[in-house]
């Protein structure tokens, strides 16, 4: 049974609706990532879960009981803030022990527990330091230790990596994930970095403009994005606008096939998406969905290269491994194909919404 769940949560600020009718479950012991661009409502949602904001509508339940109106200091979900919010007037140990101290735990016991937590985050011996003396990475660990000190039921993190530099970020993502799995604590992470979400999460909730675009395991989100937005936000994507015609999609006068005939009314505007690594270069002229293209730019990144192409379908980017792209130069003409099972199809921006559902592949 899920530990935490939201039903119909809405949040309005005056006329503006920041969160629009969100219903989600957060399975116990799992790490869920709230992923989306800035302004999509993910932080607002997290703050409502923490009890720092009150929803305009909807309910928050925990273990079956309604906690919507319960204030933050009674929910006591451990939270790590973007700026870490460490108290400058207290030492590291006093920071970590804060929740225990104000709950009345005897000093010695609180200090001992704080030290254990500092061990857990690999900051042994730094208990007497002042916050100003710590590096960014150390501050983050203190913030994590502090949030965990009260043994919360839910662990919340608001863009925890944004204050760290890139290299440290990648290391900490792995460390944090391992820590979470070891403790088995229900965790929710807010982030705008899709790589971070892919690294850490059991489940990703992609959000945009206050709504959930898609919820599912990282692989599902990546390979089967539910909308053009998700396809573009996670990983990279080539977008093509076309028109449905007799089960195929016509893009710039080229008819492309899909694994199963597209169930759109003839003439409907649709959007096709193909990931760069899905494009096959050097295909036979007779390959399905084959087309000719001219190389306009090559970005050699070492293990892979990005090949920029001008084709009859418009401008495309293909990702090829170093071997496959050897010898390709600007101006070359290549034969490429878009295999049907690498294509995803969505209603076009101004699609006449046919009663048919989105083509399932």
């Amino acid at each position, binding site marked *: 049974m899920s530990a935490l769940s939201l039903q119909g949560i809405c949040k309005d600020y005056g006329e503006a609706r920041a969160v629009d009718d969100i219903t989600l479950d957060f399975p116990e012991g799992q790490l869920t990532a709230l992923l989306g661009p800035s302004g999509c409502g993910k932080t607002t949602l997290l703050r409502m879960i*923490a009890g*720092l904001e009150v929803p305009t509508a909807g309910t928050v339940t925990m273990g079956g009981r309604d906690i919507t109106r319960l204030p933050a*200091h009674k929910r006591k979900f451990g939270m790590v803030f*973007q*700026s870490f919010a460490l108290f400058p007037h207290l030492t590291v140990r006093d920071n970590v022990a804060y929740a225990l101290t104000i709950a009345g735990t005897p000093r010695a016991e609180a200090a001992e527990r704080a030290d254990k937590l500092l061990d857990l985050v690999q900051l042994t011996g730094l208990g007497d330091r002042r916050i100003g003396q710590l590096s960014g990475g150390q501050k983050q660990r203190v913030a994590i230790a502090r949030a965990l*000190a009260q043994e919360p039921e839910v662990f919340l993190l608001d863009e925890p990596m944004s204050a760290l530099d890139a290299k440290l970020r990648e290391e900490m993502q792995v460390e944090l994930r391992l820590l979470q799995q070891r403790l088995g604590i229900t965790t929710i992470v807010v982030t705008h970095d899709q790589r971070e979400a892919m690294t850490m999460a059991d489940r990703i909730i992609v959000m945009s403009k206050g709504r959930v675009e898609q919820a599912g395991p990282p692989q599902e989100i990546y390979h089967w994005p539910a909308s053009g937005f998700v396809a573009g936000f996670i990983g990279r994507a080539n977008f093509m606008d076309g028109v449905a015609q007799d089960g195929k999609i016509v893009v710039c006068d080229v008819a492309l096939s899909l694994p199963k005939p597209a169930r759109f009314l003839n003439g409907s505007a649709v959007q096709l998406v193909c990931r760069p690594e899905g494009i096959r270069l050097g295909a036979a002229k007779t390959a399905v969905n084959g087309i000719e293209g001219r190389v306009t730019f090559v970005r050699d990144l070492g293990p892979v290269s990005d090949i920029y192409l001008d084709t009859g379908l418009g401008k495309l980017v293909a990702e090829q491994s170093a071997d496959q792209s050897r010898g390709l130069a600007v101006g070359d003409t290549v034969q490429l194909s878009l295999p049907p099972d690498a294509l995803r199809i969505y209603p076009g921006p101004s699609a006449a919404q046919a009663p048919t559902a989105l083509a399932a592949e």
Partner: protein
Amino acid sequence: MLCVFGHIFMSLAAIVVALPIVIVCSAALNGGRTMYFPPEDPTFSRFGEFFFSEPVWTEALWNSVIVAVGSATLSVLLAWPIAYGLWKTGSRGAKLLAGLGSVPFALPPIVFGVGLGFFWAFLGGLGSIWAGIISHAVLFLALPLVTISIGLQAIDRAHLDAAATMGATESVTFRTIILPQTLPYTISGFFFALVLSFNEFIVMFFVSASAFATVTLQIFNSLRNGYTPTMAVAAVAFITVSIVVFSAVARWGDLPRLMGADQSRT
């Protein structure tokens, strides 16, 4: 070139600013009853008179201290809830309250003094030292109000959220996070009010109604008879207190920031 001119200008300004102070301090050393500069018959006996032997002055000094410390404390105690309410809610009511509290300081003190004279006459407190303490507390309310507001603004709201997620109620947050972090500003406000109270005499004149005197009031009352070197001793004492207090604030607090400078610039 501009640098040189600038330095000359600033030095000149500093000299002009310091000159009367220096002269007054040296006049305290005068042996006779007249204020000569340079001092005639330099002696420290005036200091002895002021601090120990002449009851007029020792009583006045005692009154000055009581009123200053009492009113500064009361001022801070009054300013805190107003500043806190203003910071927490920012409501029009809170702003109005803060504005009202600052009115006595903003307007010419002679009018406030006249009004307080009538006020205490009706309440029966005219001439009591308590009237003096309360009057000064209200007069200088604006000072801790401003410094404490500056301190509160400097608090990161994320800290309050963090404390809440760790189980702190509003009062616990106030006690463990807000008060400690604003301590330097509270103390500065206290000291500003203290120093200004020491030196104020117009309001004190109307409120004390000749029943008691503080040092500056005593000097003010004796003005028609001219200045005496013993008064200059008072000046020395008060200047020393000011320098010590403000240097302490500068040393342990961030004085430029308190006075409105940007935090980031060095």
